[in-house]
């Protein structure tokens, strides 16, 4: 028996996956509907379709858009053979349990263990793959709060939103607070442009996050869970609502979970700003201490954890002692990366820390599109840095990237080729940041604007070498003197591009843009 599975996240739907699924339903006829899952992460090849043969053999097809190829697929599933047309769309044919080794070679899919494989609207699918087993065991009295906490601490799990703070310690601080009301907030704001890891987990495996929240609540004594999701993710919101209702119906919620939608503010990814947003206010950060674990939402002890962090928890507890064996130096476990830009296999990958940038981009990501050369990888979003060719052999881990003026961040990795102008990229991020600065502190509010003006002098072709010195000095000041993470990390793209691509800034002073991107419209009009 061959079962068809169509992977359908936001990207898949946009690439035509829903139309393909509907057409396949029509071809199959009767009441049969193909199984619809969400994003499996091979975004560059959407719409993608899996065929499961008795859970013994799997076929993975890519670019399944045209009616003719869907008709071929239908014939194949009905018992036919793989025709030549279909073979051209075949990316994997082999044993059921070997697909990860082949299709996702080099990866270790823990957070992404279920996405694309399960119907996110069916709690039974999640349970059939071991979901909620840990929670059930906890409720059956198998583990104490301290036992669970020790496993999480030992795992070395660090906040995957970018902060990298040890999750176990965060939970421990919350656990110690004496309060009748405590909150676990799942930060699903995913504000970094170019990051879509959390979206895929929320759309494809929402219960992994719900279970993570419940386990966190058990350990810390939290009384309520809140998921703060960005408004730009309507499908994720819808999927979560259904999942929460189902979890409730199946009695899987120790504490109630509420969804709060973001309203379009990057700064609300910062914990104190996020809290203010949940409280219905302007999302403006505040000074810390007090840290949210002590005084957070509505003044009560609160932990804010990222989607990826929470989705890792059920796996970590189902495999005690295993997570810490994966990784590098002080960065244990895995990280999901969203590969985009000029890369062949754009999409979501999950790799153990210690994987090098070269392995990530070339081995797993398939290298650069077309006949172009690799120039840089922007990693960590607006808070991150641009790393050049000479950095490709660096192992990915929190401390190593920080030493090299970049950050792991949320996991967005945009690959650039020789036609990208690094000054333009720095300006792009600063344009974004000036729009998102909340305005509270002077160095960020005014400083980022001045930095943008300076960068524009470069892209307009009217900058001097003195401007470069001023740019660098001001960038350092904004970094050191801003109130919150937004302002403190906003200068990173500037500082890293000056560090690795200083020549490009100097070339702009001379009126040359090596990528031929900047038009220097104002240069000839200089007095």
């Amino acid at each position, binding site marked *: 028996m061959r079962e068809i599975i169509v992977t359908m996240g936001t990207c898949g739907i946009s690439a035509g996956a829903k139309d393909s699924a509907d057409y396949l339903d029509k071809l199959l006829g009767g009441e049969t509907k193909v199984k619809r899952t969400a994003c499996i992460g091979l975004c560059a090849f959407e719409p993608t379709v899996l065929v499961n043969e008795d859970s013994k053999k799997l076929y993975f097809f890519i670019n399944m858009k045209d009616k003719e190829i869907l008709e071929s697929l239908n014939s194949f599933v009905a018992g036919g053979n793989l025709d030549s047309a279909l073979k051209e769309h075949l990316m994997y044919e082999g044993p059921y349990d070997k697909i990860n080794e082949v299709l996702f070679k080099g990866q270790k899919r823990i957070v992404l263990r279920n996405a694309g494989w399960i119907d996110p609207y069916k709690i039974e699918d999640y349970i059939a793959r071991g979901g909620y087993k840990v929670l059930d065991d906890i409720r059956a009295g198998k583990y104490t709060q301290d036992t669970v906490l020790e496993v999480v601490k030992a795992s070395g799990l660090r906040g995957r939103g970018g902060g990298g703070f040890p999750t176990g310690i965060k939970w421990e601080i919350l656990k110690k607070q004496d309060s009748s009301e405590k909150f676990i907030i799942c930060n699903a704001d995913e504000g970094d442009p170019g990051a879509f890891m959390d979206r895929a987990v929320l759309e494809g495996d929402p219960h992994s996050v719900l279970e993570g929240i419940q386990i966190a609540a058990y350990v810390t004594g939290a009384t309520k869970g809140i998921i703060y999701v960005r408004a*730009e993710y309507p499908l994720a919101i819808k999927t979560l609502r259904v999942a929460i209702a189902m979890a409730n119906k199946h009695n899987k919620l120790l504490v109630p979970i509420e969804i709060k939608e973001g309203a379009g503010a990057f700064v609300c990814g910062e914990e104190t700003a996020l809290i203010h947003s949940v409280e*219905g206010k302007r999302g403006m950060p505040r000074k810390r201490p007090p840290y949210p674990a002590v005084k957070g939402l509505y003044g009560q002890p609160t932990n804010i954890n990222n989607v990826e962090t929470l989705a890792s928890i059920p796996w970590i507890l189902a495999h005690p002692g295993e997570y810490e064996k994966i990784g590098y130096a002080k960065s244990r476990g895995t990280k999901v990366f969203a590969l985009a830009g000029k890369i062949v296999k754009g999409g979501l990958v999950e790799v153990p820390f210690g994987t090098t940038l070269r392995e990530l981009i070339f081995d797993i990501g398939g290298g650069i599109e077309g006949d172009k050369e690799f120039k840089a990888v922007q990693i960590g979003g607006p808070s991150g840095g641009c790393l050049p060719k000479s950095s490709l052999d660096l192992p990915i881990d929190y401390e190593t990237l920080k030493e090299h003026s970049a950050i792991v961040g949320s996991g967005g990795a945009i690959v650039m080729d020789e036609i990208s102008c690094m000054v333009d990229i720095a300006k792009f991020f600063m344009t*974004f940041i000036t729009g998102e600065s909340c305005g509270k502190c002077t160095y960020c509010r005014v400083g980022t604007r001045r930095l943008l003006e300076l960068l524009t002098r470069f892209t307009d072709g009217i900058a001097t070498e003195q401007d470069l010195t001023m740019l660098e000095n001001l960038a350092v000041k904004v970094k050191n003197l801003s109130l919150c993470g937004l302002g403190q990390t906003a200068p990173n793209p500037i500082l890293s591009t000056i560090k690795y691509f200083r020549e490009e800034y100097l070339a702009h002073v001379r009126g040359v843009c090596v990528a031929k991107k900047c038009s220097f419209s104002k240069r000839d009009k200089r007095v």
Partner: protein
Amino acid sequence: MEGQLSSNLIKLLQDEQEKQGYIGTSFIKELSKKLNISEAEIYGVATFYAQFRLKEQGLHLLRVCRGTACHVAGSISILEQLKSHYGLDENKDTTDDKFLTIESVACVGACSLAPVVVLDGKVIGKASVEDIIQRIEELR
């Protein structure tokens, strides 16, 4: 405190944005009375978040994604060309006949399909100016 009506302010504004396409001054006045918060405070929240518009929206909404991957794929040129085609600029985002509003959005999270636009809620990947204009005109 949890449970206070004011903690629902953003949700109430979102519902109104969804229903009317923008947050009007009369709505702010009404809400101020209901929640017992000043109009200034509500205005402060409404202007803080990118999701809320204070001016009427066109019948159709086109959002051009300006995320990093889309930027690298040329989204700024797409945005500029579309705005120019419909006679819009930084100060004017809705056509005079109120048919179309063009906005930019920070990131839709569909980076592999860059450049991305969202037309009336539908995500369109690998967008080209000609294709988008055609789709918009088909809506007339």
